[in-house]
Each structure stands twice: as C-alpha cells, then as structure tokens.
C-alpha cells in the first residue's frame, strides 16, 4: 500500500499555465523528491494530490484508485510546523489520526515522541519548544496518520544550516524504521540527493518533468556523503538540468 501515480496531469489557473502533463510515481516505501525553480508549481502538485483542486486533465491515483479532487488520502507536513498552540505535544501528534477518524494508539504515539527525542515533552505546549523540535513534532504528526503516503512541503527550509542537517539525518533514520512512501518538495539539491531514492526535476513554468534522476547511494547515508565526489558530480548534473 502506498503507490502514488500521477498521469499526464495538467493544471492552469485562468491564463496562468502551471503544470503541463506531469507524470510521476512513488512506489511503496520509496522516498521521491521533486526539485524545481521557485514558482514552478511544486506546491500546486501537492494541492492536486491533496484534493484541494481538480486537475484540468490527467489522473492522480493511489494504489489504483483515482483520487482526483477527493480529500483525506494523504498525510502532510507543511513548511511551517503549524502546530496547534492550545494542544500539548501529545495532542498535536494525535491530531492527524483524529482527523482521519482512526483509533488512537497511545503506545505508538508515545513511541513516536520518544523517537523524536522529545520524551518528557509529551505535555509541553508548542511555544515551549525550539524551531527544530517543532518540526520534529510536525513530522511525527504526519507519521502518526493512518495514510500510507506522506507529502512534505519544503519542511526544513526555514531552519538554519546545522539544524537542517541534523533534521535530515534524523528524518532518514526514523523513515527507515517506519518505511512509509514519501513525496518531498524542496529547492535544495543537496537535500534532495541526501534523502531520496529518486529525484524528479521540474522545469520553469509551465512545469514539465525534465528528467528523473535515480540516486545510487547506499543507505544508511551519513554526513560524509555530502562531500564525496560521486555526490558532487550528481549535484552538478542536476544543477545543469535546472539551469536548462
């Protein structure tokens, strides 16, 4: 469970042509990133997958069922943590399954909070946490949902360099335990290469899929990878793709 497919999806708002025949897929347990210039319609792809808007043409399907304009099939982690300030950490993490109407598994929630290094903060309120901690809560909230695929929308872009690297490593370690399918939007090539199995490169507006890069690096990946030659070669390749 957790195979997401987009086939020839196009979308325009009035005369503003945003997406042109986008096709991509995320296999079960796969980590796929979408990189593209800013304003290339990356977030529009998520809005279509989330069912907020209907694509003009093409189909979006999850495990064979068509999802066009139907909501509640994905889990989501936004750019800002968007934690609810009146809920404790525990209640925030439970929100995603609460909305989905699935049964709460308190033991699993506690386990997730522990894996985020936030044991002892279960009853803390978000304004008592640091930026990085909030993002971790936001991520385990999306993991706690019953849906099999998680969409992450530039989740680390507001963090400083060191916290970001720490968060990326933490994200990989926790994802390797839970193995959900992930679709990840970023404009940071390093981040995409470090995290993904596959990278989808989008063009400027109207966005088309320029290329699909398979990331060959073994898991589990460590920080040193970021400075290795094969990594840098691949980075240059993607950079040139984005440049046109």
């Amino acid at each position, binding site marked *: 469970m957790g195979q997401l497919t987009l086939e020839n999806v196009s979308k325009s708002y009035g005369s503003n042509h945003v997406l042109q025949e986008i096709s991509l897929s995320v296999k079960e347990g796969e980590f796929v990133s979408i990189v593209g210039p800013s304003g290339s319609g990356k977030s529009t792809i998520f809005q279509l997958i989330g069912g907020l808007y209907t694509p003009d043409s093409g189909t979006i399907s999850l495990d064979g069922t068509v999802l066009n304009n139907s909501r509640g099939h994905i889990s989501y982690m936004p750019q800002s943590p968007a934690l609810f300030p009146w809920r*404790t950490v525990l209640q925030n993490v439970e929100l995603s399954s609460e*909305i989905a109407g699935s049964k709460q598994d308190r033991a699993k929630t506690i386990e997730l909070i522990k894996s985020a290094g936030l044991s002892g903060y279960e009853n803390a309120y978000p*304004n008592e946490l640091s930026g990085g901690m909030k993002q971790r809560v936001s991520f385990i909230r999306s993991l706690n949902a019953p849906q099999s695929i998680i*969409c992450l929308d530039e989740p680390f872009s507001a963090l400083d360099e060191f916290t970001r690297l720490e968060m990326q490593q933490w994200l990989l370690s926790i994802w390797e335990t839970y193995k959900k399918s992930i679709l990840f939007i970023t404009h940071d090539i390093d981040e995409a290469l470090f995290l993904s199995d596959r990278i989808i490169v989008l063009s400027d507006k109207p966005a088309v899929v320029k290329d699909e890069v398979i990331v060959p690096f073994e898991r589990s990946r460590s920080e040193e990878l970021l400075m290795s030659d094969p990594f840098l070669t691949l980075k240059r390749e993607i950079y040139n793709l984005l440049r046109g």
Partner: protein
Amino acid sequence: MKSAVNKGWRPLLVFILLLVIWESAARLFDVPGWLLPLPTQIAKEAFTGYSLYASHIMSTLTLSATGYVVGITVGIVVAILLFRVPFLQQAFYPLLIVSQNIPIIVLAPLLVIWFGFGMLPKVIVIVLVCFFPVTIAALDGFRQTDRDMLYYLKMIGASNRQIFWKLQWPHSLPSLFSGLKIAATYSVMGAVISEWLGANKGIGVYMTLASSSFKTDRVFVAIVLIIILSLTYFGIILAVEKSVLRWRSKGGNESNGATHS
C-alpha cells in the same frame, strides 16, 4: 497571588488618596450631605443600613446572573450560526447592528408593556446588552484563524465541521473571553436599568428609592454595590479564562505563527 499584590498596590493607593481628598475637601467647604455625602458617611450607611439592602443584592444577583448566562449563550450560538451559514450572516448581520442602535432606555418601557413586570422583560434587557459583545468577539476570533493551520487541515482532508471544532473554535477562545468580560460588566448595568422600570426588589429599586428621598449616601452605597458585583463577575470570568487558556501562559517564545494580541 504575590504578583497580584505587587501590581495591586498602585491603584489602591490612588483610590485611597482620592477618598482622602474627597473627605477633606467636603469637610473644608462644608458640603451638605444630601448634595455630596462624605466617604465616611457612606461607609457608615453601608454598615448600619445593611438590612435595608441585603435582600436587594440577592435579587439583582439572580437577575443579572440569569441574564448573563442566557445572554452569552445566545451570543455564542448566534456567532456560530452566522459564521457557519454564510446566508444567515448576509441576512442578519445588519439587523444585529441595528439591534444595538436602539437605546435600551427607550426599549425597556415597551418590553414592560409587552411582557409585564415579571422577570422576563428584565432578562430580555440584559440579554440584549450582553449578547452583542460576545457575538462580535467570537466572530472576530473565528475569522482570524491561522492560515498555515487551516491549510494543513485542508490538506489532510478535514471536514468543515472538524475545521470548526478543532481549529476555529479553540482559536477564537482568547477573543471570545474578551467579549465575555465586557458582557459581564454590562450584565450588572443591564440588571439595574431594568429594575428602574418597575420591580419591587433589586439594587436598582433601592437606588431609585434613595435618590427620590434625597438619601444621597444610599445612592453611593448602591454604586459601590454595583461596582463590587461587576468586579466579582469580571474576576470569575478572568479565573475561568486563565484555567481554559493555560497554554498561553506557558513558555516564552511565540514563534509558532499563531499570534494573539
């Protein structure tokens, strides 16, 4: 508790100072008691005349509390209906404003003509002054929800009902409590006004009797009673607010995107 004492001594000092000035100025210029009684005279009347107003307090207390509870319930229900049903909002919002433009003093005698001298017209007066600040405060709170949180809920497929109860309602509480506090003080005022119109008990009645017989010290006793009653209501709401909005007082760094004034 300690911080309350720390903050409280300044206004208390100013208050005592004012009383001292009043007392000495009135004595110095020999102002007659029926024109402006001395603070000490008022205090004396408050003690010795306790049996004269004790029963009136209970009556006003019951009336204002009933009116307040009904008023805020109506206020909250109206706010939710107007917010959840856009058609109702378009149709009734202007009417809501108009309802506040009719002076209560004009409306009250009409209510007595229609509903008699019982409890009902008085409760209606209090409801009319109480519901409006609550409705406006709640509507403001509902409308100013955090966009990131709203977007998050929509992306994970929350229904409108879920969005309302899990986001818009809790988000509006700080704003709603401002309205509840305003309404609390209004409710006592509304009760006293409605008692002027014809009642046999209540601080309003006590006040009318006192002023028509030039017992000015008793009028001041009534004013003090009204202030104490209003402050008590205000304090109760403040305490409820503190316990409901516990999350606001914890922690220091407000960088979650949720900014409340």
